[in-house]
């Protein structure tokens, strides 16, 4: 019987939670479901060349068959998706991933039209990690040099009175240990890989009920021609491992990765605390301007910004109520 080998390419390190428990696990499942007729050549760490910025085009142009990347890497290209990266939008990764999938199907179906999208998901809640000073209220952020991961969080840091410092993720440990930055914003899952639990002492979490601080969007996509050329039964296998459920599963597995990172910090006796409801309210108030700017930006690009924002929010609400975190 006819089989096919697919090249899976991404930037994640071969030892990472994402690669082992999400990408490999997904490939193993597809291989099994297809009775080993779909096989994978797996390339982590950009082994096939290029940088993460090029990944999406590599899938679109058939350089490789399947990729996993951040739409935010090429920001202007997937503008509507960025709504999920706005501050205090996300609840938990599983529910928000479902909302993200449904949102793209209904509000932005042409955003990823160049590829066969397999999954759209987000990571767990972002956390504020600081070295010297606990961030219990907005005032504590003033003047802190903070490394921010995305465009929206960079804006947020500015709005909160912190000084955003841009640098690639791998430079975080060095920068923290020398005080080039005094803190950073990342989810727990990423903490061990950049040793943030060893280099910071304070970790500010937000009650997801009022929206978690931030998240980042991801996309797993397949080359269209490659997908269309599959025999019908293999297409079904891919379909069965795509979509809302797969997106939710990826989000959930990624957020499960948070547990180990949080434990690593707790084991060192670090101070992990929830920002109180009233103070969180103030954080949200300060971040409102960022939403307004985003809506204006969408309007300028010819979309209905307000509607996009409201739809995303109501979808997150709907799926959060329907998903036990």
């Amino acid at each position: 019987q006819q089989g096919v080998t697919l090249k899976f390419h991404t930037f994640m390190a071969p030892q990472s939670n994402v690669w082992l428990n999400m990408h490999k696990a997904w490939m193993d499942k597809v291989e099994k479901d297809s009775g080993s007729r779909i096989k994978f050549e797996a390339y982590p760490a950009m082994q096939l060349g290029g940088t993460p910025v090029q990944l999406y085009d590599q899938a679109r142009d058939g350089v490789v068959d399947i990729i996993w990347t951040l739409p935010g890497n090429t920001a202007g290209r997937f503008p509507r998706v960025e709504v999920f990266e706005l501050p205090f939008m996300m609840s938990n990764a599983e529910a928000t991933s479902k909302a993200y999938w449904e949102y793209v199907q209904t509000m932005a179906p042409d955003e990823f039209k160049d590829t066969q999208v397999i999954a759209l998901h987000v990571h767990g809640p972002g956390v504020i990690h600081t070295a010297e000073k606990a961030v219990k209220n907005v005032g504590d952020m003033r003047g802190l040099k903070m490394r921010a991961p995305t465009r929206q969080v960079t804006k947020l840091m500015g709005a909160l009175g912190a000084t955003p410092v841009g640098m690639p993720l791998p430079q975080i440990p060095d920068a923290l240990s020398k005080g080039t930055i005094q803190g950073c914003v990342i989810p727990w899952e990423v903490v061990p890989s950049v040793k943030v639990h060893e280099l910071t002492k304070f970790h500010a979490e937000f009650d997801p009920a009022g929206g978690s601080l931030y998240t980042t969007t991801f996309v797993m996509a397949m080359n269209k021609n490659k997908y269309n050329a599959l025999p019908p039964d293999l297409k079904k296998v891919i379909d069965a491992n795509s979509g809302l459920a797969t997106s939710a599963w990826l989000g959930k597995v990624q957020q499960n990765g948070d547990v180990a990172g949080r434990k690593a910090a707790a084991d060192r006796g670090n101070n992990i605390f929830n920002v109180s409801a009233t103070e969180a309210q103030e954080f949200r108030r300060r971040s409102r301007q960022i939403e307004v700017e985003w809506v204006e930006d969408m309007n300028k690009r010819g979309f209905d910004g307000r509607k996009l924002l409201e739809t995303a929010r109501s979808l997150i609400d709907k799926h959060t109520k329907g998903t036990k975190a």
Partner: protein
Amino acid sequence: MNAVELTLGIFAVMLVLMAVRVPISIAMFVAGTAGYLTQTGWGPFSNFLNTQAFARFASYDLSVIPLFILMGHFATQGGISKALFSFAAAIMGRFKGGLAMASVLACAAFGAICGSSVATAATITSVALPEMKRHGYSGRLATGTLAAAGTLGILIPPSVPLVIYAILTEQNIAKLFAAAMIPGIIAMFGYMVAIAIYVRLVPGQAPETDEAPRLTRDAIKGVIPIVLIFLLVFGGIYGGLFTPTEGAGVGAASTFVAALIKREITWDKFKQCFYATAESSAMIFLIFIGADLMNSALALTQVPNQLASVVGSWGLSPLMVVAAILLFYVVLGAVMDELSMILLTIPIFFPMVMTLDFGMPKESVAIWFGIMVLMVVEFGLLAPPVGLNVYVVNGMAKDVPIAESYRGVMPFLVSDTLRTLLLLFFPAISLWLVKYVG
């Protein structure tokens, strides 16, 4: 044609082209292209190329290379490096081979703020080579010393290959840097000892006495700018004002300003800086593009992936496995550049090494292996036929045949071998400083 034959074919094409004087970047590009096309056809290959120049050239991580090269030329044209070098020479001058030792010292100092070995080699060469020539050093010893001493750029932290290793293996960069510190200092002294022995064993390579300038008031005044720049960059990085990558920009900018203040630099000299920076930067980045093509073609064959299981099936002891991997790196390093080699092989070898039991905690194994990898990729920068550092230095010494430069590198390769064995059998040398970090 099976995968192994294809792999050998790709290497064969590259080596034949190199042998007939095709630029090595182009030889890699053509061989990689042939290998890529054989495996995927035109469509995927051409699309891969669409963004390749952008991906490699517009890279923040690699921006330190042209910036440090530019900084070196500002310093050279502004008369600053020359002052620094005469200062180092005045200190080392009393020893036989003192100027060569001063070059090693200067490379080590520069390496402490620069993470790239080619940039270190190119910068110090631009000041040290004319001086050594003027004092009657042989082209062999001068170029060999500078090529080898240039590797201190990656042996002494910060270090670009270590950063890449840390990213690929999710290890702490600060700890890896700490682990590299003592081996880097051992390397520096090892090179000085190599020079001391070499100039005594082989006559006619260095003058009996250097007649280096004495430590005059002017000599001391001359190094003030570079000391200030050094303090600014060093202090800024370790005092937490900026990252090592930003430090490259600060270094270049402050050297530019210092040259302006010294009023030694004219628009004509600026243009010379740009031309010289253009030549070395373009050459290096074109090699990156060629290496990318080679790497992608090799990765597509899956041979590197299968290698792990082949080695695993031999049933060797853990230390033997590591020794075999390191030996493989030495061979591979002869024909590839250091960054591409790490990118290609670490994802394959690292998981394999982590399953072995060395009687150390996993993290220690990961750090120690990283240092060992750093030691052997550094061989690749010096070993013929494609030792990048040797080419960079030799390219700046137009009258020295490449074979002479390779001969000049040999004593340093002996020193490298001894150091690598020392670190292989005594991991504690690397790991000792790590416990004081984080």
